[in-house]
């Protein structure tokens, strides 16, 4: 028995390494894509991270939360603010965005320490998200309100990041690092604890796991990831507006998680890739975005509740998440 298992294990492991090929192949994209397509691909990476972050809270942890657009906006605005008023370059502003996103996650979830859960937590995150949007609009001296806050020349480590190609490679590195880091965390006691809390908080606590702390940790981590996505978004659009982080955006985030697969890291990537092009397309027709994404989520809930990744998981075990390592 012991002699057979290593062979099976190592071939599985080898298969999992296939995922490393994806960024390598992706690195070739700039050679084939024009500027508009490149811009789209960059946006895809932004939304992959948005979805990865959001999925941690609503998928893995299973808590309904509406603060995602707040984290996104905070990351974007913080980047713009740090670059404008503190003269930071992108790589430093990025760290600022991650930290502020994490702090926002902490604030949004701190009531979990007192035992706030479920719809109470959902409502307080909704209030938090809307409050932040009000702040972007009204703190005009800092954020320029609805005029939008432009970014000064975006540079990273001294090199200009103005071209879509430059942005692409920077985003690619960031995305790979964040996804890998998230995967490390999920394939560990942290990832298991989060899933356990989703299943049954009381039982989890009886195993000695401090559930409130892990709930907050998930929000902080999610906030940081989405904050980083916000920084990338700001660098991509080079001007930050409050409308980008409003209620229409909320349903887009939900849809990406659900379509890809709630609770699955690979699902998050799928959801981000599949759906990103659509918001851009629909922006021309008022109301279509909300209509379309609403319909998509309902369709998923009724017919494919575990998302596209569940279809892929039937084909190959690679797409079934494991929460341990050996």
């Amino acid at each position, binding site marked *: 028995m012991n002699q057979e298992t290593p062979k099976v294990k190592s071939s599985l492991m080898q298969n999992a390494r296939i995922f490393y090929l994806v960024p390598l192949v992706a690195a070739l994209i700039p050679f084939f894509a024009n500027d508009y397509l490149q811009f789209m691909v960059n946006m895809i990476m932004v939304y992959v991270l948005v979805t990865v972050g959001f999925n941690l809270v609503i998928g893995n942890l299973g808590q309904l939360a509406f603060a995602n657009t707040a984290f996104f906006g905070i990351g974007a605005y913080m980047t713009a603010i740090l670059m404008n008023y503190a003269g930071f370059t992108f790589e430093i502003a990025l760290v600022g965005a991650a930290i502020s996103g994490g702090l926002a996650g902490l604030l949004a979830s701190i009531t979990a320490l007192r035992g706030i859960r479920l719809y109470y937590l959902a409502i307080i995150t909704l209030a938090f998200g809307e409050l932040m949007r009000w702040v972007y609009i009204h703190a005009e001296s800092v954020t320029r309100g609805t005029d939008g806050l432009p970014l000064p020349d975006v540079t990273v480590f001294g090199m200009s990041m103005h071209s879509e190609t430059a942005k692409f490679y920077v985003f690619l590195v960031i995305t790979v690092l964040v996804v890998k*880091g998230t995967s490390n965390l999920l394939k560990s*006691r942290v990832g298991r604890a989060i899933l356990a809390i989703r299943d049954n908080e009381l039982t989890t606590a009886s195993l000695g796991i401090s559930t409130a702390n892990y709930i907050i940790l998930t929000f902080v981590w999610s906030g940081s990831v989405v904050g980083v996505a916000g920084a990338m978004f700001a660098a991509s659009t080079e001007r930050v507006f409050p409308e980008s982080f409003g209620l229409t955006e909320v349903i887009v985030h939900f849809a990406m998680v659900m379509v890809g697969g709630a609770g699955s890291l690979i699902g998050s990537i799928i959801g981000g890739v599949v759906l990103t092009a659509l918001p851009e397309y629909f922006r021309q027709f008022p109301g279509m975005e909300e209509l379309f994404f609403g319909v998509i989520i309902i369709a998923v809930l009724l017919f494919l509740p575990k998302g596209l990744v569940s279809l892929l998981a039937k084909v190959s075990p690679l797409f079934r998440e494991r929460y341990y390592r050996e």
Partner: protein
Amino acid sequence: MSDLLKLAGVSVHFSGLKALTEVSFDAHAGEVLALIGPNGAGKTTLFNVISGYVQPTAGEIHFKGEPIQGLTPHEVSAKGVRRTFQNGGLFGDMTVLENVLTGLHVQIDSNFFGLLLGTRKADEAERAAAARARRLLALMDMDGFADQQVKSLSGGQQRMVEIVRTIATEPPLLLLDEPAVGLSPPMRARMMEVIKRLAGEEGISILLIEHAIDLVMAGSDRIVVLNSGQKIAEGKPNEIRENREVLEAYLGYA
């Protein structure tokens, strides 16, 4: 043998309902103490009160000399009192191995930043944990199921996994709630063997709720009998077997 667990005058009175009245007894290290009584006698309430899910309205509970009544389940668990649940407390979306690993959680030396940055120390701690979980499963002959989703297991197998998970937490005191219910006869026998081994070899103290009197008589060191929330007898199996009150309480039970 010192008193590991000491209950003194524990009562639980819900509005009008007297679930437990003045229950007192001790449990010693390394022994199997069975809790028996007719349905509704208050056995599960007693477990709930010891493990912090229910507050006693009177009385004290001491574990290793420290008072634990009034603590939350998490706090009681942290002190070393662990329990299993009647309706399975396994995590449905995980595999058997992952479930056992949640039992090892507090012993794994990996933290957020170590994992995030991919340090060797964190990675090795995690791998060692997986190996240990497989060994624990092997102890109970359950290692073949390690990579299966718990949902696909039978009730008896799930119960076994739950016990392995609880053992993984290395509890000084283990509360087992009807571990043999619904198990096939060979599995029941194995369950009792496992319980005796845990107490005898590993020195774990086990408090057991069980209806199967044959298992209780064969496997426990001492027995406490409850009826209508009160303790009516306490002693070794052969003493309890002869006890008049106990026989009356069980009139109708084989």
